[in-house]
């Protein structure tokens, strides 16, 4: 359907959309070409993106070199720029988000795919898909007006009281900061984990469940020891999809992270993420060095995503090598 109006609009004589569709359905060559173009376009877009980021960040790369990655100062007035606090903030908020979202998302997915009655399962999945469609600025606003006051008055003091001996939960409770940003991110990425994990779990062949049950396993044993391990790779995939979303999330994080380029051990401390500083400062960045430093931050974010994705692949390779599809003993 997608290319019918395009192809048919100029002249509809011989190329009626229906005829075109029929021809496409029959002809392998056309299908091959069209899908190849689609794939090549994706690759081209990625290459162009990196190329542009590389070219436009030249001034900053030449000026700061590798020290850009380990410098903690971000001073637009003096023209000193370093990415470290932003990389730190991006990683910390994403880690908090994953720590909360993965158990929640995978747990819910197991329930919906294996244990829940089908009707409940499909309606809950629908609700979760709705969550994924909410614009991120809405999450940011909810974060600022609902979560932040609760964090400041209830959750952070409670954490301080119970776990305050850990450096993670010390310092003044502003309500905003790494922890709050991580929680908002967790809510945003749960639907990704849930939705993909559920599909993967459902795709595990029925025979495997039945075989396990036939061998005397309980329902839970068959789920936990057979179905989940078989779906492991897909679940990893869902987690890394969610991670990619968390790394690049901009608006919601900007609104609750505190926007202070600071490296602190405490999750209560305000911080800053790469995407947030780009959103904040790009439009008003005057001066070529400033602009090119911001673009280099974009490049750093891209590389970060790339490296984390690479690690994910490696992890999958390693765990698969230990025997995929074979029952863990």
């Amino acid at each position, binding site marked *: 359907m997608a290319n*019918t*109006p395009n192809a*048919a*609009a100029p002249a*509809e004589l011989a190329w*009626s*959309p229906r005829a075109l569709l029929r021809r496409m359905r029959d002809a392998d060559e056309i299908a091959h070409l069209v899908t190849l173009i689609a794939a090549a376009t994706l690759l081209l877009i990625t290459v162009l993106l990196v190329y542009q980021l590389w070219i436009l960040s030249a001034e900053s790369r030449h000026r700061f070199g590798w020290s850009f990655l380990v410098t903690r*100062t*971000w*001073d*637009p*007035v*003096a023209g000193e720029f370093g990415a470290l606090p932003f990389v730190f903030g991006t990683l910390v908020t994403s880690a908090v988000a994953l720590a909360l979202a993965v158990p929640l998302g995978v747990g819910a997915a197991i329930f919906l795919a294996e244990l829940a009655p089908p009707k409940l399962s499909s309606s809950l999945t629908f609700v979760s898909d709705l969550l994924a469609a909410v614009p991120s600025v809405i999450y940011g606003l909810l974060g*600022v*007006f609902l979560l*932040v*006051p609760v964090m*400041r008055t209830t959750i952070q003091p409670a954490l301080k009281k119970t776990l305050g001996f850990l450096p993670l939960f010390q310092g*003044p409770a*502003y*309500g*905003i900061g790494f922890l709050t940003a991580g929680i908002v991110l967790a809510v945003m990425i749960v639907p990704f984990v849930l939705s993909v994990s559920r599909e993967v779990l459902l795709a595990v062949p029925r025979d495997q469940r039945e075989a396990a049950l036939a061998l005397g396993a309980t329902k839970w044993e068959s789920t936990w020891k057979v179905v989940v391990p078989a779906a492991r790779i897909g679940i990893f995939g869902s987690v890394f999809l969610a991670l990619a979303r968390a790394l690049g999330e901009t608006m919601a994080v*900007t*609104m609750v992270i*505190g*926007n*202070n380029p600071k490296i602190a051990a405490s999750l209560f401390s*305000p911080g*800053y993420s790469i995407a*947030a500083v780009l*959103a*904040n*400062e*790009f*439009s*008003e*960045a*005057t*001066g070529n060095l400033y*602009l090119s430093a911001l673009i280099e931050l974009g490049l750093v974010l891209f590389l970060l995503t790339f490296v984390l994705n690479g690690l994910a692949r490696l992890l999958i390779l390693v765990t698969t090598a230990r025997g995929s599809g074979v029952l863990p003993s």
Partner: protein
Amino acid sequence: MRIVKTFSVLAVLLALATIAVAQGGQILLNAAGATFPYPMYSKWFDEYHKIHSNVQINYQSIGSGGGIRQLLDKTVDFGASDGPMNDDQLKQATVPILHFPTVLGADVPSYNLPGVSAELNFTPEALGGIFLGKITKWNDPAITSVNPGVKLPSEDIVVVHRSDGSGTTYIWTDYLSKISPEWQQKVGKATSVNWPVGLGGKGNEGVAGLVQQTPNSLGYVELIYAIQNKIAYGQVKNSSGVFVKADLASVSAAAAAASKFMPDDFRVSITNAEGKAAYPISSFTWLLIPAKFTDTAKRDVVKDFLNWMMTQGQQDCEALSYAKLPKEVVALEMKAIAKIQ
């Protein structure tokens, strides 16, 4: 089939419309820049279009920095900025760029102190000290001494600033640079700076939201935003030693005081202006107009628009809560319009 037909009809209509516009003697001007004066500009461009139906001015409020960049790249006919262009930027321009002040803005200190309903007074020393992180408690003598009768708590001051680059920050840091040598040396003035302390909120609404929600906080917001959202704010001591509350009159007074020293290119900072009635954290916002247009039709429109804006247009300011230009400045600018060729 029906879809295809609808598409072709639409395409033909679109093509016809484009041709009609191109041949109708229409003059289309593109401009981009500051967000702060955007409501005013869009009203002006709209009103001007009503009088001159053949002129269409398209303004994108992408921020001052973006406006300057697009002007230097010549992707727009003119730009707009909350801070004047610096010498480096002016040097990059192939055609000299002229600054025209259009309206005035101001920043106000807004705070949230549970149990304190009085309007607080702030001295320059107190504001400088707080934003440098040297004054950390609300009951510091620098604050209590000018607020007799107000019981200020012994709580930490939570400083809130803008996190996005903005003209509002430029005005605030320009003011702090003037009243505090230490600020000027350590931090300086810009649309974004390396803040010594504080939390960052995105946009006026972000700062106002954080201040509202955080007890014992102090931040700065744009005057118009504070007026329109009925946010309480404090008075600031000006260079004559008078505590002045920001409003349209006290902001215009600051501009009038500064007009005596107006440089030819209008690139002037009016923070900490002289005069008993002047509010000290005020600023112009500027249109950035190339001094030479290759297209004479565009040039004539720009000149006529500037003329109209200084006279008719200024009447619309107060309805939108913008402080209008003092007449001394208008007189100077009317002369400067002749420089556009």
